[in-house]
């Protein structure tokens, strides 16, 4: 195991946080982009935590079975789509609460993944390859910190594309219309439920892919403690990013760095508050939610249909 302290001293901490941000942020990024699409359509899917764990499990299993990690990513996306479709279909029925269904899907997804994933804990599946962005440096610690994954880069590219798509394309306009005023969309002849169903499916696909990143790249194996609320934090992160895909990217990097804080400090010998540092991302999320919410007014960026239903 490489120890950044050997040559870098305390500089190892920010480096480890940077490396952590690049590695850990991908699941946050994919889930928050997915949730962003879903919420733009006027619906909340709190169940993406379950989708994330299901994606991690099915992606790992498919990679193991097929020998190709990219098949694993595809299967994880497909499983995410199925979960999104179930959520979207249920919430399209009258009197069904999307928040509650999300909680149910979260518990169902985690339970199902734990059930089906039992045989996957031992074996080692082929992992996704890493790209070295640290080629300019001779320091091995810098090189290892800058090992990133193609999937993460795809997410980085996807964020501005998604923003452009939401603002400038026909599909984006329909999606935003449905999210801002279901009445208006209905009057224009669009099937509100169908648009929301597809938006939830798209969100599920992205969350599933984010899950496959967990098991196929970092940490890179399957176990039951793989996700500890990343899917849920990503949902909170969308509120912080004010429903903008590019701001989702920045927020994901911030969260990735916060998650890496505990292990980074441990690597330089600060071990006393290890468990407390593990709470950093949760405390950060909560702090950001407290600062960015208000009891008096709602954010102007909030899709109006999300208020109308409450």
């Amino acid at each position, binding site marked *: 195991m490489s120890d950044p302290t050997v040559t870098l001293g305390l500089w190892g901490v920010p480096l480890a946080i940077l490396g952590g941000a690049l590695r850990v942020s991908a699941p946050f990024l994919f889930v928050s982009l997915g949730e962003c699409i879903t919420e733009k359509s006027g619906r909340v899917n*709190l169940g993406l935590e379950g989708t994330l764990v299901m994606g991690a499990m099915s992606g790992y299993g498919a990679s193991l079975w097929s020998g190709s990690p990219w098949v694993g990513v595809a299967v994880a996306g497909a499983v995410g789509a199925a979960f999104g479709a*179930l959520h979207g279909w*249920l919430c399209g*029925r*009258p*009197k*069904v*609460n999307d*928040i*509650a*269904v999300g*909680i*149910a*899907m979260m*518990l*169902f*997804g*985690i*339970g*199902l993944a*734990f*059930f089906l994933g*039992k045989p996957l804990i031992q074996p080692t599946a082929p992992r996704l390859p890493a790209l070295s962005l640290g080629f300019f440096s001779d320091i091995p610690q810098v090189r290892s910190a800058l090992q990133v994954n193609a999937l993460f880069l795809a997410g980085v590219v996807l964020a501005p594309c998604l923003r452009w798509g939401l603002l400038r394309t026909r599909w984006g306009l329909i999606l935003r219309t449905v999210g801002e005023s279901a009445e208006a969309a209905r009057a224009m002849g669009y099937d509100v439920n169908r648009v929301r169903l597809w938006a939830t499916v798209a969100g599920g696909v992205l969350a599933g892919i984010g899950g496959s990143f967990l098991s196929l790249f970092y940490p890179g194996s399957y176990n039951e403690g793989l996700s*500890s*609320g990343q899917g*849920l*934090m990503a*949902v*909170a992160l969308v*509120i912080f990013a004010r429903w903008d895909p590019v701001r989702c990217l920045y927020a994901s990097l911030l969260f990735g760095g916060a998650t890496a804080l505990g292990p980074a400090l441990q690597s330089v010998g600060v071990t*006393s*508050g*290890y*468990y*407390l540092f*593990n*709470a950093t991302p*949760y*405390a950060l*999320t*909560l702090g950001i*939610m*407290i600062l960015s*919410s*208000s*009891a*008096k007014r*709602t954010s102007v960026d909030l899709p109006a249909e999300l208020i109308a239903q409450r």
Partner: protein
Amino acid sequence: MTVSAPVVSDIASGSRRLWALRERSLGWLEELLPTLAAILISLLLFGVFVALAGQSPLAVYAEMYRGAFGTWFSIQNSLLRAAPLMLTGLCTALPARLGMIIIGGEGALVVGGLAAGAVTIPLHGAPPAVVIPAMMLASMLAGGLWIGAAGALKILRGVNETISSLLLAYIGIALFNHLVEGPLRDPASLNKPSTPDIGEANMLGNLPGMDVHWGLAFGVVMCLVCHLLMEHSVFGFAARMVGGNPRAARLSGLGVPRLVILTCCIAGAAAGLAGMVEVAAIHGKANASLLAGYGYAGILVAFLANHSALGILPVAVLLGGISASGGLLQRTFGLPDAAVNVLQGILFVVLLGSQTYRGRVKLRRSPR
């Protein structure tokens, strides 16, 4: 020949009472039918799932029944698990009456259990009559603080209570790990870091005549008290009014912030007490065994009971039974212990889907 007038009126009032009884029970049935149908459908779906996993559904169900309610031993085991579920169920059910979805019961349970374990350290040597109430009080305070914080954040800053309560749960678990591994750790607990033993004398004993501890009584009493509070008190009436129409409630002069925060505190106190029960009746100290998922299962309990404090009682026993049968499924059929979680997940999803039929089932003739 004349029939005396009082007799006629007696018959009339008797039949009217019978009619009213019939109406009321049919009304109840209308409410219950979607839930019962949801339970039945999820059992069918789980049967398909079990068949796909290569086991006979009927055999699995027979074994589940045996493991949950088949013998006196298994009934007691189910009741043992129902006790904390009643308390964590209240944690979601009470705020739900005000229109809030709280899912952080696990956090309140954990900090409650930790507080119960920690409070015995300074009270070392005190009589149980002091220690046990102190443990109850400490756990309820800690749990109440945890969920009360989610309520206060909702009121003060408009923070979404569903997400904040779960984040608080993760923070509570991290704090728990920190204290149990560090400052509050009993040096003698080598393999499994724990707080010091609370002492044999301070353990909650069993209810008379059975192998079920007093925690079950705590759960039942809390449910009954909360039922009276929510259905038969001014406080409950005001709370339900807030849930029905917050604007109207505010306009009619109700102190909505006070109601919300107080209800969240009571809800958290219930879940905190569940942590105390686990510590004082089962483990004898606070350690990682507290993280058994009772808080999360409590969410399902509350939804299945339609957020009625009285409804939680049978639902908690049912889910306690399902959870008790998990070990048997693992031993007999080699099904992973997560099979129970799958069944609970299916049940939850189907139940919420069935909400769409709520109010559409008609057994009574509609009045002309």
